[in-house]
Every structure is written in C-alpha cells, then in structure tokens.
C-alpha cells in the first residue's frame, strides 16, 4: 500500500523536530502523526491571526471609503478590536431555535470552518514552506472548497427559517454556476505548466516578472480577470453576496446562528477570501518569486494586494440581482473562459508563448 503523504516536503523547522523525535525512539508512523499535528496547529494559528487581521483591515478600508474612522478605541487605530470582538462572541449565549434540525444545524458551521482550512495543505507560503506538495494540488483545493457550499446549504436547511433556506439555495445556485468559469480560467495556466502541483506552477514562473502568467498576452490577463470575478462569487463576497443580502434575506443562511457558531462562519468567510487571493498569486503572480526579501514575505505581500482588490470591489460596487448574476455567469463568463482556453491551447500548439 502506498501512502503518498509520506513523501511530503517538510518545513526546515519541522525537519529539526522530526530528528529530535526520532532520537527519542518513537516508531516511524507515529512520528509522522506528531509532526503533522504540529504542522496543522501552526497553519491553523497563522490563519486565525490572518483572518482576525483581515476583519480589522476590511473595517478600516470600508470606513475610509465612507469617510469615517472605523474602529479607533482599542489600541493604535483599534488594532485589537477584532480580538475583543472574538472574546465577546465566545461569551455570548448560544441561541438555538426550537424547530431546528438538530444534527444538521450543529454540523453546518463545523463543515464550513474545516473546509476553509483544508485548502492550506497544498498552498506554498514560500520556497519549501508547504505542508504537502500533492501532484494534484490545485484540483485538491477545488475539491475541498466545494464543501463550503454544502455547509451553507446545511445551515440554510437546519435553521428551519425561510430566509435562511433561500440564502442557502442562492448560494448553491451561485457556486455551482461560478465553479465552471473558475475552473476553466485555472485550466489555462495548468495547460502551460503541464502539471497540477502548486510548486510546479510557481516554479514555471521563475526568472523575472515577465514570466508571470498575468503577462502572457493575450490569454493571461483575460484568465486572471475571469478568475478573480468567479473567485469573488465563490467566496460569497459583494458584489456577489446575494446568499446573505441584508435587504432581502435579513442575513441569509446565518440568520439563526449566534455566538461562536456565527463567528465560525464569519472567520471561514475571511479565510476563503485569503485562499482565493493566494491561489490567484500562485497562478498568475509568480507565487513566492521576488527579489531581495524572503520568499514568504513576497507571497504574503502579493496575497494582501489581491485581498485589497477584493475589498475595494466590496465597498465600491453595488450588489447584483439574482437573475443578473446567473446571466452574467452563463452568458458572458462561461463563453469567454472557454474561448480563452481555445486561444491558449492554440498558442501552446503553435509554440508562440515565451
């Protein structure tokens, strides 16, 4: 029996831990379990901090766009406001509707939270800073992110509330529609790399800014634009946030959730926004490649740039109507991305790319 995870690359820090544990005489398989538990805890901690930071950043950007100050009371420019919010949400009463579907209502936030973090198994934060370089990397991320939509449907159904149900429905329809242009835009890059592995995709863009796929004219910029539009919809962010449109659905799928369960949905939303930005950086902006600074700084900096783009979308564009949303996906994005694949395949076949 083959166990592919065993061939994974470890962080330099964890190879040290590995040797330390090996010297204590722990048997080989349990060594892997201990090391991966540490890795999982580390990734989880870093991402939770990132999500808390993103919440604060989003509030500040929203405030400055609307000529306000935003959070100012806790620390310098309110830097620990979201930590106080998290503490508040932890202490709140867990209100549960009597008519809920008990099991489904309980598991929905858990599935949403886990699905948001699963993608980070194959995301390289820097050179060698990857948990496992699976040879199906990008496909694995596509697979695990589909659980977000199942969790939203579960939340909508389990709440036994018509607004929540409508929110879950809208989310399912939206994600199923926008998954097609998203995967089709990713395929353009995969076509040129010839591999699904995240490390291979980044390494194919080594050697200067002009090797990034965003600068592969004409299909690179088109693929990036269609990807970022579809990714905004996948992450349920404005202008595609109809699953939780306040004016129409109160708060959509999470209307009946309170306290920590609501916080889990909320944090997962920000982790998802960071995930789609990280994938955009890996596919189109050369991943960790950059001069002078260490690789993880370049990766984080570029990813924050894309997150900033998503935040600017959110606070400057109005929300789409449901029918506009569907027509935009099926009548505009899907034909454009398919045409883009054909153009890219033609370039690859003719050998015109550089």
């Amino acid at each position, binding site marked *: *029996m*083959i*166990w*592919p995870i065993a061939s994974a690359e470890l962080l330099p820090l964890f190879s040290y831990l590995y040797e330390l544990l090996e010297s204590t005489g722990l048997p080989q*398989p*349990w060594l*892997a*379990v201990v090391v991966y538990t540490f890795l999982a805890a580390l990734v989880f901690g870093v991402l939770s901090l990132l999500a808390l930071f993103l919440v604060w950043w989003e509030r500040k950007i929203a405030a400055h766009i609307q000529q306000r100050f935003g959070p100012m009371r806790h620390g310098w420019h309110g830097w620990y406001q979201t930590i106080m919010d998290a503490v508040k949400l932890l202490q709140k009463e867990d209100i549960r509707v009597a008519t809920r*579907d008990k*099991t*489904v209502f309980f598991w929905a936030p858990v599935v949403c939270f886990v699905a948001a973090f699963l993608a980070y198994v194959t995301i390289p934060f820097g050179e060698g800073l990857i948990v496992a370089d*699976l*040879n*199906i990397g990008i*496909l*694995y991320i*596509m*697979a*695990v992110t*589909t*659980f977000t*939509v*199942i969790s939203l*449907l*579960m939340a*909508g*159904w389990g709440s036994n509330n018509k607004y929540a*149900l409508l929110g*879950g*429905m809208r989310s*399912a*329809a939206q*994600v*199923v529609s926008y*998954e097609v242009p998203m995967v089709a835009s990713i395929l353009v890059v995969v076509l040129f790399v010839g591999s*699904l592995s995240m490390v291979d995709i980044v390494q194919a863009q080594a050697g200067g800014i002009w090797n990034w796929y965003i600068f592969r004219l004409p299909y690179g910029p088109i693929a990036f634009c269609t990807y970022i539009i579809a990714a905004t919809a996948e992450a349920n962010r404005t202008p595609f946030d109809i699953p939780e449109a306040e004016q129409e659905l109160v708060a959509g799928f999470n209307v009946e959730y309170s306290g920590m369960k609501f916080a889990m949905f909320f944090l997962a939303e920000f982790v998802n926004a960071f995930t789609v930005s990280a994938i955009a950086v890996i596919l189109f902006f050369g991943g960790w490649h950059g001069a002078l600074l260490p690789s993880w700084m370049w990766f984080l900096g570029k990813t924050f740039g894309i997150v900033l783009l998503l935040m600017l979308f959110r606070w400057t564009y109005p929300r789409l109507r449901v*029918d506009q949303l569907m*027509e935009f996906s099926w009548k505009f994005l899907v034909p454009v991305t398919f045409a883009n694949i054909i153009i890219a395949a033609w370039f690859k076949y003719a050998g015109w790319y550089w």
Partner: protein
Amino acid sequence: MTLDLVIFLISSVVAVFGATMMITQRNPIASVLFMILSLLAQAVLYIQLGALFMGAVLVIVYAGAILVLFLFVIMLLNLRGRESLGQPSPPISLTVKYALAVLFVLELIMVVKSSFSSDVFADAGNPGVMVMQTDNFGAVNDVAVLLFQRYLYPFELTSILLLVAIVGAVILAQRSRDDDGPVDAASSGESEGKAAE
C-alpha cells in the same frame, strides 16, 4: 498495526456506515448528507491506493456538483419526511425484489472472485477487462490516456447520451410550463425564447 491500516479501517467503517444510514433514513436531506459522508470516506480509500486524482474527481463531481443539485431539488420540493410509507407492496413484486437482490449478491461475489484470479491480469490485451496498474495507478496522465486515446469512442458516446438527457429535461420542463400558463418573470421567458430561436 500500522497507520495505513488504522486509516483504512476508519474510512471503510465510515463509508459503510454512511451508505447504510443513507438507505435507512426517512428524511431525504439526511440521506443526501450521509451519501456525501460515504463518498468522502471512499475518496480517502482512493487516496490510500495512490489514486489521488480519482479521489479528488470523486469529491468534485459527486459531492461538489451532483449531490449539491440533489440537495437543491429536494429542498425546493420541501420533502420533510412527512410522506406516508404508502401501500405495502404486492407479494409478487416482493419475490421479484428478493430474487433480484440474491442475483445481485451472487454477481458481486463472482466479480470479486474473478478479479482476484490471475487469468484476468494475464489478459491485458482484451479491452473489456479492467487492467490494474500498480506503479502509476490512477494518475492524471494514465486516466487521460485511457479516456482520450484508448476508450475515446465510448467516452464521446457517453457525453452524447448525457446531452440527450439534458435536452430531454429541458423539453419536459418547457411542456409543463405551457400547461400551467405563464409562471416566471419576463426576463427568463425572454431568455428561453432566444434559446429556442
């Protein structure tokens, strides 16, 4: 007891548990959710065999696309497990059911037994026999070669079959709409008119 065996035991127990719960639940939503659980455990089994691509595709296609549509339709129909069990089946159909079940189990045993005999593996040239490759089993390249070179014709035929099903579904939906009179908003009617032209 190795780690492989522990993971295999856990995921196979979860797979069988999910499948059993799926057919015994009265609530259709719970059935679909248990089916997703079972498929996830099956994906873990594929990954353990080294077929990462097959595992990912199983999750994307079934859990991600088909079962989401299932959930969608069931929720829209609003089946909340309230419907009655209905009339008990007449005895003839019951005997037919049991006979078919026994036949199916026998078939399953024969297939499993034959796949372990060495004759099948020796006959690699026969296109009707599934050939097990140990070193690169289920990799992207291998699946692509099988689908787009060796079995290209049946693969394309299947896609035409699916297209026929889609067209059939659209026609059925359109006919029922004519019976009920105008239902939807002007925008969807307009788009369907364009498609018909």
